[in-house]
């Protein structure tokens, strides 16, 4: 073969390889239509609407009792394994604790590559050295790291493509979030609300790592909202943004929630509403400009982060088609907002024992109950500091038109104390402690989001740290803090199957399919478990 022949044949071979083994390029168009390829799991919440719902139905109410482990993957750390894996054309991509990541053959669980970004000694992440997962675009994966970098990895090898520092980890900035890809950009939100950071949401160009925009969740001097912070308190105001937002391509808006103001328990140090803490933000995806905001808990004193997944739903509301945003908030209310303008449409308690607010008034502000604020001696307030729910994902099923939420039934005693800010130190304004003689518990609950009515409940022995997945098989999957992973009838809540995984579940499940076989994946402890029905593809 002479050189000219090689030149002619090689591009043809390249063409064949590019086209044949299943489109390994994750285009923006594929992410837009992610729910049309349920064999894959292309984004953190399964789709831009963040339903964490799949149309796969091979595993269903009639056969879920037969589920068994197909394979398991042991990562290197025990504890809080919070990743939501992505599955792209037969490969599963996950992140672990301590800046670890991996790619696995999704059929066998065999590792293809492993990655770890060295963790500096002084990294602070309040609630574990965790990471919640990758985002993918093209042939690149994007991971936001504990030391506040964003890294791009080659999908096939795990090789580093680019690496940018978003902030200085020595000032307690950290990332735990799974990024969100929108068009040509990678969106991330920072953590550090326990250390007095100034929160932000960043967008980076996927190809270069160059920052496209930054939105500070605590407005600086001269910016609207700055007046809601007393004195210099804005500089250490918190309002982190550590859970993945949702995106509406028609509005070109990113919906991204924010966490508590700092110091969380001692409001006297930060008088005012403290915008944009504990809020939902609607940002222009191209520019990062704020379109609207809604603050769920103005001047939050109880660590009621709003860092719960916003679920987007185009549906009629009181006879009129609206772009609805559903949000089960840590403060105990299930909100329905209009995604176009942030108008409050409804706020119903999904945690019956609320003691901090009577209701959400027609002006959109909570009617705060007297005597609920933290004191030096401590005040019992419900929900507790970890919230009625938390970062773990809810699910929305279009089959049942129900929203599934894991709920923690617990209260706490909140104390406060003045605290000086020290760079790199906890900045909480005191602590919360468990209420003596009150045993907390948890539940998986199904709600009609239009009325707020609870349709069913399955009781957990302990408050949960894991979210759920709904499927067209009429099922909801969820894991509990006592180490059980379970399948429920999405209509009735009947518990159809469970397996003890040996460690608390700190994540939300996903599903995918290969060779006509449906799989369910959930991390627990240090292990990623993958389940399927026995035998081959039983169609």
């Amino acid at each position, binding site marked *: 073969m002479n050189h000219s022949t090689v030149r002619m044949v090689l591009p043809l071979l390249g063409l064949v390889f590019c086209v044949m083994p299943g489109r390994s390029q994750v285009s923006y168009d594929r992410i837009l239509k992610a729910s049309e390829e349920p064999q894959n799991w292309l984004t953190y919440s399964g789709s831009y609407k963040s339903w964490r719902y799949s149309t796969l139905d091979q595993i269903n109410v009639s056969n879920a009792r037969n589920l068994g482990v197909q394979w398991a993957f042991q990562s290197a750390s025990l504890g809080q394994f919070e990743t939501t894996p992505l599955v792209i054309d037969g490969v599963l991509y996950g992140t672990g604790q301590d800046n670890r990541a991996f790619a696995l053959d999704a059929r066998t669980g065999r590792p293809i590559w492993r990655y770890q970004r060295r963790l500096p000694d002084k990294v602070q992440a309040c609630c574990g050295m965790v990471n919640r997962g990758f985002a993918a675009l093209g042939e690149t994966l994007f991971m936001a790291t504990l030391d506040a970098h964003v890294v791009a990895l080659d999908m096939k090898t795990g090789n580093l493509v680019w690496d940018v520092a978003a902030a200085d980890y020595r000032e307690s900035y950290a990332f735990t979030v799974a990024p969100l890809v929108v068009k040509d950009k990678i969106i991330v939100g920072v953590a550090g609300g326990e250390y007095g950071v100034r929160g932000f949401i960043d967008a980076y160009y996927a190809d270069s790592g160059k920052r496209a925009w930054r939105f500070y969740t605590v407005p600086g001097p001269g910016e609207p909202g700055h007046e809601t912070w007393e004195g210099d308190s804005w500089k250490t105001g918190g309002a982190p943004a550590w859970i993945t937002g949702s995106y509406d391509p028609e509005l070109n808006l990113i919906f991204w929630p924010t966490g508590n103001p700092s110091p969380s328990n001692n409001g006297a140090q930060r008088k005012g509403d403290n915008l944009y803490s504990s809020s939902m933000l609607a940002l222009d995806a191209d520019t990062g400009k704020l379109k609207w905001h809604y603050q769920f808990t103005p001047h939050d004193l109880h660590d009621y982060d709003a860092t719960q997944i916003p679920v987007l739903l185009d549906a009629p509301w009181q006879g009129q088609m609206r772009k609805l945003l559903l949000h089960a908030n840590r403060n105990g209310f299930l909100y329905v907002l209009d995604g176009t303008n942030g108008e409050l449409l409804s706020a119903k308690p999904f945690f019956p024992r609320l003691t901090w607010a009577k209701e959400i008034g027609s002006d959109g502000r909570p009617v705060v109950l007297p005597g609920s604020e933290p004191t030096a001696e401590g005040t019992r307030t419900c929900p507790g500091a970890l919230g009625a729910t938390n970062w773990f994902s809810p699910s929305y099923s279009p089959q049942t038109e129900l929203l599934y939420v894991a709920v923690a039934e617990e209260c706490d005693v909140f104390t406060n104390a003045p605290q000086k800010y020290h760079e790199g130190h906890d900045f909480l304004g005191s602590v919360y402690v468990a209420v003596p003689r009150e045993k907390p518990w948890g539940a998986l609950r199904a709600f009609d989001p239009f009325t707020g009515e609870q349709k069913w409940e399955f009781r957990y*022995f302990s408050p949960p740290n894991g979210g759920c997945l709904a499927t067209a098989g009429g099922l909801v999957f969820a894991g509990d803090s006592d180490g059980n992973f379970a399948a429920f009838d999405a209509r009735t809540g009947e518990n159809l199957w469970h397996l003890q995984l040996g460690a608390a579940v700190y994540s939300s499940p996903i599903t995918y399919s290969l060779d006509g076989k449906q799989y369910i994946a959930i991390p627990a402890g240090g292990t990623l478990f993958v389940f399927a029905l026995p035998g081959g593809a039983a169609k």
Partner: protein
Amino acid sequence: MSSACLCIGEAVKVILMDTSHNPSSRRFTSRLVISISVIFFANSLASALGQEKEVQNPLTGDPAAIKEGASLFRANCSPCHGLNASGGGRGPDLRTGDWVHGGSDAAIFRTINDGVPGTEMPANPFEDSEIWALVAFLRSVSSGAKTPVSGDAARGERLYWGKSNCAQCHMVKGRGGRLGPDLTRVGAARSVAYLIESIREPSKDLSLGMTDPNNHYVYPLEYETVTAVLADGQRIVGVAKNEDAYSLQLLGQDQELHLFLKKDLREVLHERRSLMPAYTEAVLSDADLRDLLAYLTGFRGEQK
């Protein structure tokens, strides 16, 4: 069952705050390593010279420092040691003047800064001045010397193993029953006031059970009374070693493990009370109580 057992509970049940269970070594600053090295150096120099002098807290008795120390304590230490340093689910009472890991200013500084290997006390990334403020605060709430117990320990020992029946449910260095908490270290870990409360009113505050090293957010089980009602109506009463939505691992009053699937049970009842009977004055006179306390406060485990 007429078991007479003694349950030592905790004054404040605490779930660790998000921030409190970080592997603190990560936050250990090199500056503190240097400063503590200086202290060690000073100590070894002092001992080399045959002197007893150790580093003293420059802030002892300083009202502003005590106030700052109180705030620091509430924010950082109270999750384990209780809101008023009176002891919690994981940490001992710090008011007794009885410093298990050394009671000099330098030793307390070192305990706070370095933590205590082999226990749940972590290293802490405070500034030196903050540690001294904490020491000043602790001195202000501590009685300054081990509380003397006036009773007769030898007589207390006879009560413990005899008439008062404590050993039926509580193990000390491998001897005794297993239904209640092990008391091998209780004299070092709890205040006398707390021991009295636990004897007179055992249900007032329940002891914590097993913790899960992989899950800092889950509440440990407590020594509450759990009753498994079997399908045939038979009741087995005991303490839950563990429980979830599907199963129950019960240590019965017969001191045997009973392992149930909840689907096989008619009901599981939880009562927020201890299985230990209250040792009121009618059962245990004040004089007997003093003798028993004199014996219990000697339960110091292997620690000095």
